[in-house]
C-alpha cells in the first residue's frame, strides 16, 4: 500500500514538474504560421548564434526549466526521507508492541 502511495506521489510530482516546465500550451497552428511568416533563413543555419542573441520567439524559458529541475530534486528527496521515516516508525511501533506482548506472557 505504501509502495502504491509512493508511486502515485512520484507520478504526481513528475506531472507537476512537466506542466511547470512546459508552461502555457502553444497551438500547432500558431507555430506553423510563425515559421511560415519568417521564411527560410539559410544564413542562420550556417552560423553560430550566441544564445542571448536569439530572437525572443526562439528562446525557451531557461529559468522555468531550472526551477522545475531543482524543485523536483528537492521534493523527491524530501518525499523519500518522509517515506522511509514513516516505514521505520511503523516497524518500530510493531516491534515494541510484540516485545511488550512477549514480556507480558513471560516468553521474552
Amino acid at each position: 500500500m505504501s509502495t502504491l502511495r509512493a508511486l502515485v506521489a512520484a507520478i504526481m510530482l513528475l506531472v507537476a514538474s512537466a506542466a511547470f516546465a512546459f508552461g502555457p500550451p502553444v497551438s500547432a497552428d500558431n507555430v506553423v504560421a510563425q515559421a511560415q511568416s519568417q521564411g527560410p533563413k539559410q544564413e542562420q543555419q550556417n552560423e553560430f548564434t550566441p544564445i542571448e542573441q536569439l530572437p525572443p520567439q526562439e528562446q525557451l524559458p531557461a529559468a522555468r526549466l531550472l526551477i522545475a529541475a531543482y524543485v523536483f530534486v528537492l521534493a523527491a528527496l524530501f518525499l523519500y526521507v518522509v517515506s522511509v521515516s514513516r516505514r521505520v516508525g511503523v516497524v518500530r511501533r510493531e516491534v515494541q508492541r510484540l516485545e511488550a506482548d512477549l514480556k507480558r506472557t513471560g516468553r521474552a
Partner: protein
Amino acid sequence: MPKWYIPVAIVCGLMFVASPLLIANAPYEATMGLVQKIFYYHMPSAIMFLVAAVVCGIASARYLFAGAPHQDRVAWAAAELAVLFGIITLVTGPLWARKAWGVWWQWDVRLTSSLMGWMVAVAYLLVRQYGGAGSDKLAAGLALFGMANVPFIYISVNYWRTIHPATSVVPTLPVSMGFPLWFCLTAFVLLFVLLLKLRIYLEEERARLDSLYLSIEE
C-alpha cells in the same frame, strides 16, 4: 543508529542549504547560459545512481555466493536508492536537454543505457515486493546485471558518437564552476550514506520483527 548519524545529517542539511547560493554565484556557461546550472545537481545524482547500482551488485554477489543475510538487506536498500537517484537523473537531464539540445530525449547510448540501468533497479524492487519465495536470489541476479551495466553507462560517451558531454568535461572545469560541483557532489555522497544507513536500519528492524513473530508462533 550510530553516534555519527545526527552530526553528519546536520552537516549534509547545511550543505544542501548552502548549495543554491554557490550554484547561483557560479558563472554562466558560454553557450547554454542559465539552464546549464541544472548540472550541479544532475551530475552528482547520476554518480550516486551508479554508486547505488554498484553497491547493490556487490552486496547481491556476496549474498548469492556467501549467503550473508545482511548483504541482502544492503542490496535492497541500495536498489531503492538507485531508483531514487536514477529518477532524479532521468528527470533533470531532459529538463536541461530541452533547452541545450532542443529535444527532451535522445535515444543515444548514454541516455538509453542509463534508462536501462534504472529499469533494472525498478525490476529488482518489483521482484522483491511481489516475487514471493525465492525472489531474493532472483533479484540478486538482476542486481548483477545492473552492476555490469554501470561501466558501460560511464564510458559510453567516450566511445560512441553522442550529444551527451564526455567524461573529460568535469576535470577541465574552472575553479569557479568546479568548486560548486564538488561541493554538491560531497553533499550528495553524505546524503547517500545517510539514506543507505537509514534504509538498512529499516530492513534490520523488519528482520527483527519477523523473528519476534516467529518466537510468538513457537
